């Protein structure tokens, strides 16, 4: 555990990390303080990226506007906070919490979508959370991450095609949007988050989490 590791703590203990936990540890469902703070940090970091993505969305959307509905491919850029939070924290509610934090932050900095950012964030997080819950919060492999991303993608597809500016377009475009959003969710939210979580674990930043300790082991 990296509690205030003094600057020169020995590295020798690092090499002896076993590839499987040496004693079975029952994962607790209760959120520790470190769970809350790190989930918030991830949420905030993602929120900043969301905001930047929101700025880039306008030109990118125009670039894709030759086929309206393709802008659904950009939707994944707002979905990865929940999946990443779920993969790192591995506790019930992590996906929703992280996605909501990210939405709140991007909203605070200022997006064109105002409060709807928050509402979308809650539901997007729920989309990922439901998938993780379906796996009983005990499997964290790649396919779970991809499905969680897809879950969030489905939610945002439904929301956008009903309530946002895409709702004002014809049905064909809505279908294109829906499919693009789910694909985007799988790739940008699912795959990218899984890679990021794995990368994080390898840096040792997650040593207080189950996701960091079982970087080699399959759970």
């Amino acid at each position, binding site marked *: 555990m990296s509690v205030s590791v003094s600057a020169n703590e020995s590295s*020798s203990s690092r090499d002896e990390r076993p590839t499987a936990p040496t004693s079975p540890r029952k994962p607790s469902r209760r959120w520790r303080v470190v769970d809350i703070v790190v989930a918030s940090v991830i949420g905030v970091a993602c929120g900043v990226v969301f905001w930047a993505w929101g700025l880039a969305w306008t030109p990118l959307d125009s670039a894709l506007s030759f086929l309206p509905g393709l802008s659904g491919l950009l939707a994944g850029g707002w979905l990865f906070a929940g999946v990443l939070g779920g993969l790192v924290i591995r506790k019930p509610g992590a996906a929703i919490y992280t996605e909501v934090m990210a939405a709140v932050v991007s909203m605070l900095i200022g997006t064109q979508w105002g409060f709807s950012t928050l509402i979308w964030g809650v539901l997007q997080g729920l989309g990922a959370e439901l998938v993780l819950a379906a796996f009983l919060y005990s499997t964290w492999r790649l396919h779970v991450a991809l499905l969680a991303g897809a879950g969030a993608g489905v939610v945002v597809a439904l929301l956008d095609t009903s309530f946002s500016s895409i709702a004002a377009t014809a049905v064909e475009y809505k279908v294109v949007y829906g499919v693009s959003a789910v694909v985007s969710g799988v790739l940008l939210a699912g795959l990218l988050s899984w890679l990021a979580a794995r990368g994080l674990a390898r840096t040792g930043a997650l040593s207080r989490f189950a996701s960091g300790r079982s970087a080699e082991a399959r759970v």
Partner: protein
Amino acid sequence: MTTASGARVDARGWGWRHAGRLRPAVSELDLVVEPGERVLLLGASGAGKSTLLAGLAGVLGGDEEGDATGELLVDGRPPADQRGRVGLVLQDPDSQVVLARVGDDVAFGCENVGVPRDETWRRVDEALDAVGLDLPRSWPTAQLSGGQKQRLALAGALAMRPGLVLLDEPTANLDPEGVVEVRDAVGRVVEASGATLVVVEHRVSVWLPVVDRVVVLAAGGGVLADGRPDEVLGRERERLTEAGVWVPGAAPAAPVRHRASSAGPLLQAEQLAVGRRGTRGPAVATGVDLVVDDARAVVLTGPNGAGKSTLALTLAGLLTPAGGSLRAADLLADGAGPSPSRWRSRQLLSRVGTVFQDPEHQFLTATVRRELAVGPEALGESPAEVGSRVDELLARLRLDHLAGANPFTLSGGEKRRLSVATVLASRPRLLVLDEPTFGQDARTWRELVALLAALVDEGRSMVAVTHDAEFVAALADDVVALDRAPAREAAS
């Protein structure tokens, strides 16, 4: 300030093994600290000092995070049941500030422990006074210096009126002024409240005036030495020096030098003004005249806020000068033009190597070997050449056994060595280092100074920013002292 009675510490055969590790961090520890004692805790890295402090503060985590053996008691009860009885201050000033305003941050501990509102604010004022932070409650914490942040963390711990005050390398990341501020604040507080004190730090001479007992932990477990400061330091002098403790009275060995002759100036600055945003922002330091010669070392010193780091980064070509002139001689520029800030990233790579204050900002890849290869690969070297350079550096800087490890998992000293090694991989002529000896123990310090001396002797130039007087004495050929800027610009 009303006195809080000191807490008593009892460790009986106590051990802790972090989850996911094979070897325990602490084992078989038997230790008793009487109420009101002031203990300096020493030991080689890996002896478990931080773990012991974390255990005393009750923040080691439950079964999910590790296994405990034996007993560790504060006032006869487990520490986790007594939040608020123990105060803990850690090493990194930035990672301990919880809230955005000074008063709120200090009140945080009291709120958690259930102190009524009026009493809380009274304690906040007392605590700020005790640590010497003369600031209004609404002052933004983001605008505090490192030393102020550490005193803020101390105030936050003190407001809970703890019986046991734990400090884990509190002055490691501070400049000399900050170190003294914190030490004095702790001394005053412990004097007034009678609380028990346990300090972990390798800078012994700083804390000698405050402590009355020294305990040395053994790397394999248990206590190596325990007694009055002068006794222990006298008896264990050699073992402590070997472990990297700055034992007072032992002057650090100066490296043997074989100086090369200088081929002329590399960089010339005339009336240089530097700012964090180049020409767009306020200038942090102005009117700087200096020359960096080939095969010579220039050291930049000065108080906090004087712009030393900004100047170093400008000399390294990373920031645009805010005014005046900075010219690189042909010897350095090698056809790239006289302004380092206009050079492309790859041109900069082979001419100037910069080592940042926090090595973690520079890590780009997932293994040490790939990290060293980044520079040569960016220069377009052949794979064979890249491989041989990497192997050479791994050997020279004793990083071979870590070649496959993730850079972030290295210890502090190893990270520093790695960041120096990555800079050397592209064979630059000029090295710029920002606080290279910050927070290093004596052993890493010696290694680093010897390495840098050898590099300068080989014909490289060096510009270093430092507060460290011993570093200046060992390596500097030329010292440029910056004065404090006349007006401190508000943080943007």
